């Protein structure tokens, strides 16, 4: 065959290799699918502008408004935290949700399906990669915001903060995994849903102000988005005036977040199974609608 290289022995190439199955295969799949997200970030640096500089402009606008009306200084910190968490929300809404659709268009989805792994592992890998990549952006926004606007943090419990953050992320990306299946079924029509969801959720989830400002039932309704309660709980745990401006107690918020985690992860699994069966039956898995 090609003569530019030393040819390896054919029998060594094709020698059957031991392959893992079960939870080891699941874990390998999660890590392998997370890898492109993480490595992609290192190779495509444009995110620094779009995902740090632009959100910082939105944060700055709120900071200047709060300072103009002489709002309590912790509100500046609220806006910075909101800016950081926005990165996760946008990642879930625009990247995670549409990912399976793009995988289908690229031809990857068919290869994921015919491989002996579980599609849930692929989705978890996408979520993990997206979450870790976005965490770097969120940290950058918090760091910049803290330096630029002199934000003071008073952390009451690091452990609780970590638990709230992890639960928020699990529930949020569980929701993203559910949305990914939904996007695959609805194809481009799902884009309208995302557009429809983006701005109202910015408002009712209290990204830049405490949701306590809303009537109770509006804030309670908005709590279906995990970041609403997650952000509120984190603010209560890291700012001096946080508990006074909190929606409900951190304990209650943690409990609701736990429920949301279960609901979204189980929902994602069920919806994914349903989607796979439906798509195989109707022939939608690997081609656009006929």
């Amino acid at each position, binding site marked *: *065959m*090609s003569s*530019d*290289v*030393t*040819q*390896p022995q*054919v*029998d*060594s*190439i*094709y020698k*059957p*290799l*031991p*392959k*893992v*199955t079960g939870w*080891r*295969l699941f874990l*390998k*799949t999660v*890590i*392998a*699918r997370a*890898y*492109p997200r993480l*490595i*992609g970030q290192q*190779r*495509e640096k444009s995110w620094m502008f779009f995902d740090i500089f632009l959100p910082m402009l939105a944060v700055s606008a709120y900071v200047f408004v709060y300072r103009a009306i002489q709002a309590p200084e912790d509100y500046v910190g609220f806006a910075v935290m909101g800016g950081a968490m926005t990165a996760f929300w946008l990642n879930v809404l625009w990247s995670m949700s549409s990912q399976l659709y793009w995988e289908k268009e*690229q*031809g*990857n989805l*068919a*290869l*994921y*399906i*015919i*491989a*002996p*792994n579980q599609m849930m592992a*692929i989705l978890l890998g996408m979520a993990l990669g997206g979450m870790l990549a976005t965490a770097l952006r969120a940290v950058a926004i918090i760091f910049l915001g803290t330096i630029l606007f002199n934000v003071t943090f008073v952390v009451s419990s690091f452990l609780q903060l970590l638990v709230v953050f992890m639960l928020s992320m699990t529930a949020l990306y569980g929701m993203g995994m559910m949305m990914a299946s939904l996007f695959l079924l609805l194809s481009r029509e799902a884009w309208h849903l995302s557009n429809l969801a983006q701005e109202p959720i910015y408002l009712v989830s209290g990204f830049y102000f405490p949701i306590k400002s809303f009537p109770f039932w509006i804030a309670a309704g908005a709590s279906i988005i995990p970041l609403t309660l997650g952000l509120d709980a984190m603010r209560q745990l890291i700012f001096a005036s946080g508990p006074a401006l909190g929606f409900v107690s951190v304990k209650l918020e943690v409990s609701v977040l736990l429920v949301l985690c279960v609901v979204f992860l189980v929902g994602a699994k069920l919806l994914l199974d349903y989607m796979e069966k439906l798509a*195989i*039956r*109707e*022939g939608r*898995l*690997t081609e656009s*609608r*006929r």
Partner: protein
Amino acid sequence: MSPLAIETRKLGRIYKIRGNKKEKNVRKELAALSDVGIQIEQGELFGLLGPNGAGKTTLIKILTTLLAPSTGEAFVAGYNVLNEPQHVRPRINMVSGGESSGYGLLTVRENLWMFSQFYGMPSREANQRIVDLLKLVGLGDRINTKSSDLSTGLRQKMNIVRGFMTDPEVLFLDEPTLGLDVGASRDVRHLIRGWLDDDKKRTLLLTTHYMVEAEELCDRVAIINQGRVLACDSPSVLKRRLQEDILFEIKTSPLNGLSAQAIEDLPEVHTASLTEMEDGALLKLALVEESALGPVINALTDKNITIMSLNKHEHSLEDVFVQLVGHSIAEAEKGSQDE
């Protein structure tokens, strides 16, 4: 007889097509596959030959668990593709021509490593196999190139490596040389043959609309058109079925009064035709038996006619296809483009 690697029984697939804006609620049906029954033994290289839209890819999608059949059953490695996909998937892999799978930001090695993990391959061994296979297809020097920087042909070679890398029992190649140049296509064909010859338990199903590829590679070929299998056998048997006569073309010096009728009167000569040329003549023969050629040559030499060249005309799969379908693949595809 070897155990069956692939079997389909009365397999059919109907697509429901939505109407245009005026006929939004009207559902039309398109039969992409009808009553397909094929049996492929372990170790075979089986070809599906047909024009675009013939149903080749639909059949592959069903066999790779991506699509449910509307009627009938399909088995791969003894497992039902619809009810037991969990047993089928570890045993198969698939490569499609012109696919753009993987991620452009990842290097060739990284893309292949990622897919190896989905099959549970140990990382170190997978990486070594990736290096070896890339060398074998002449991509050894591109291992750290981002896949977005590869040409179509090189990208396809990477895809082919992805298919072989996991050592499947049954490999599905859907138009694997689509868009490749002559040299790259030859490399891919060598790789395919080498992979099969290495272990007789491996089976490969190849779809193509390149007749030469099917003829050169396949142990058996199914000719498929409009969702139906029209014929299924080895290329040589298919070609023999086409016509019982054995055809020869003999270029000679001027004929010195010898007539076509005189040759036709010889035993076992079915037909003979003579065409005068500037420097001699062209004699076309259809013989019942190859042994009839001897008396024809004797008749020519008796008249002091010099034989300048003698060619046996072999039927090609293209001839078989034209006879079965009524037109060539190229004509079928031109027709579908015009529509």
